[in-house]
């Protein structure tokens, strides 16, 4: 199949500039409403449950899931679907365990919750290490993906692409804060869901609107094996470990957790996860259709010819079904997807740097509102520049593993401390700090020793640690560390402090 992918396309450019124009317009509007730290970090708590549901979905559905999973399904069939389901199952956990208490206990970051009844300094430093590690690895994966994707789709150079992403993302966050970021997420979520839905309907129209006929066509063409588990899951422990990272990592992602502070109360936080789970699940169901649609209509060989990883399956499918204009639209949607995710990540990283480290640790909470806002903005620009710089320095590297690494750190460093601080009255400062540092450190160490780095990247014969994702080991280790250290350091005053935490965790604070 001849494709226009890789050539500068007028339609793609037009959609792309339209998106930039609309989102900068939103930023200009939001900038006038962003004067205080509460507005900058939490959109003044003015976001409705439905809006936050879309924004959560927008924050979560990255280009990696849209392009990557569709690509994986189109080239491997059923094996790709394992990812479609895995990326959703963390959301019910977010709803049941963290959304409401988090909203009631914190102000801007998840460290607010962990540090609520513990010593501010050490807890916030450890939490910031976990947050920034998660954010940096997630950002590298997104930036390198963005550079490659935009190069492939618009024909721009890798560096130019990253500069554009960096500049737009800094503009959203710097001027519009959380309000602009939220609306960028909402616009992106609507575009992505509409684009994927339209594409899926066009595929199904060719198969009598019956997904089973599409799957049957795939089996006719490429063998019944595409409908059954293949070699991707030849090692069950690898699948379980990745599953644990996805399931518990979602509830530890700083940019997701931060979104719960944008709604007025715990009830809205709860409802927003309900909407988000519905939207994200619907989206992953669509990836079934898109993946098999691309397999049958475009063909795995044609997809791999454009990009070895299969990432161009959805755009190629769009081109096949709707020609260059639809390709342009889908390309612009993929671009918008990346922009929105990096904006959310940058804002949560900036909050960790300014709210947790500068204001709470360096200034011991004694900083004027104007100073807090200034530091948050400096942190935003600094992180934006770091993201572009990292994206350029990792050019051409295989960074796909970094997303699952980010989930593993979130699951091992942030999630255990968050859960223990909310549910266990004997949890101590030393326990929290030890849990977060050991969770983060062990994840980084085991990733370094894993086949992902040792075999795939360094080309060694074997790796010391057998699992590709360490979450199976590091989540229990982080929980155990937190519990054991707390038991050795617990005293009566720690347990008494829990009574106030408990009350606020359920009732929230009046007038907040």
């Amino acid at each position, binding site marked *: 199949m001849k494709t226009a992918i890789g050539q500068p396309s007028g339609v793609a450019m037009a959609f792309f500039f339209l998106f930039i124009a609309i989102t900068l317009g939103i930023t200009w509007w939001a900038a006038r409403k962003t004067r205080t730290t509460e507005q900058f970090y939490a959109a003044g708590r003015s976001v409705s449950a439905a809006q936050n549901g879309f924004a959560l979905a927008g924050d979560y559905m990255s280009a990696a899931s849209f392009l990557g999973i569709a690509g994986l399904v189109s080239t491997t069939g059923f094996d790709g679907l394992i990812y479609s389901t895995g990326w959703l199952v963390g959301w019910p956990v977010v709803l*049941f365990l963290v959304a409401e208490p988090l909203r009631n206990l914190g102000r801007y970051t998840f460290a607010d919750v962990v540090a609520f009844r513990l010593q501010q300094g050490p807890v916030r430093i450890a939490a910031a290490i976990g947050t920034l590690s998660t954010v940096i690895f997630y950002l590298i994966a997104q930036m390198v993906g963005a550079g490659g994707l935009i190069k492939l789709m618009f024909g721009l150079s890798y560096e130019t692409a990253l500069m554009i992403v960096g500049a737009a993302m800094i503009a959203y966050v710097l001027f519009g804060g959380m309000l602009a970021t939220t609306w960028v997420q909402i616009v992106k979520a609507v575009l992505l869901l509409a684009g994927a839905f339209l594409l899926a309907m066009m595929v199904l129209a060719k198969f009598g609107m019956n997904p*089973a006929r599409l799957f049957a066509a795939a089996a006719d063409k490429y063998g019944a094996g595409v409908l*059954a588990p293949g070699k991707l899951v030849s090692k069950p422990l690898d699948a379980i470990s990745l599953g644990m990272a996805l399931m518990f990592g979602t509830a530890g992602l700083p940019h997701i957790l931060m979104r719960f502070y944008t709604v007025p109360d715990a009830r809205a936080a709860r409802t927003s996860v309900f909407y988000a789970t519905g939207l994200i699940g619907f989206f992953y169901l669509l990836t079934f259709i898109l993946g098999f649609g691309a397999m049958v209509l475009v063909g795995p060989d044609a997809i791999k010819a454009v990009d070895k990883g299969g990432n161009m399956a959805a755009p190629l499918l769009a081109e096949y079904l709707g020609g260059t204009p639809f390709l342009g639209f889908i390309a612009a949607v993929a671009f918008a997807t990346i922009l929105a995710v990096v904006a959310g990540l940058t804002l949560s990283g900036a909050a960790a740097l300014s709210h947790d480290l500068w204001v709470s640790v360096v200034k011991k909470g004694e900083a004027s509102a104007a100073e807090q806002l200034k530091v948050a903005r400096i942190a935003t620009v600094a992180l934006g520049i770091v993201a572009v710089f990292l994206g350029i320095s990792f050019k051409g590297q295989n960074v796909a593993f970094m997303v699952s690494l980010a989930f593993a750190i979130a699951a091992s460093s942030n999630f255990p401390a968050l859960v223990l601080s909310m549910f266990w009255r004997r949890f101590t400062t030393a326990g929290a700090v030890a849990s977060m540092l050991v969770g983060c450190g062990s994840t980084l160490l085991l990733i370094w020793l894993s086949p992902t780095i040792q075999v795939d990247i360094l080309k060694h014969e074997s790796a010391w640690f057998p699992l590709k994702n360490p979450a199976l080991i590091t989540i229990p280790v982080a929980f155990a560390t937190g519990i054991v250290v707390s038991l050795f350091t617990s005293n009566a005053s720690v347990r008494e402090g829990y009574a106030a935490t408990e*009350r606020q965790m359920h009732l929230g604070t009046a007038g907040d």
Partner: protein
Amino acid sequence: MTIPPVHNAEPLRALAASRWRIAITLTVVMIATYFGFIALIAWRRDLLSRLIAPGLSVGIVLGALVIVVAWLLTWIYVRWCNRHYDAQLEAMR
């Protein structure tokens, strides 16, 4: 345990405990569903390859069902909170 002087903590604690029971139960169901699916993929390949109808393998149906289960569990939780939890919580403010 000291009880805060102004408020009686017991009713709140009982309500919180009932919420945790539901939250933990639903979390365990979600974990069992997903890792059960993974375990079937790993060890019962033959079962998942079986076709229910032309084009519909057991694996694809179960994969879609995992997503449906996630929806159902969040719906059950939100419904319970909206009907019971919020009203009782409101009464304690």
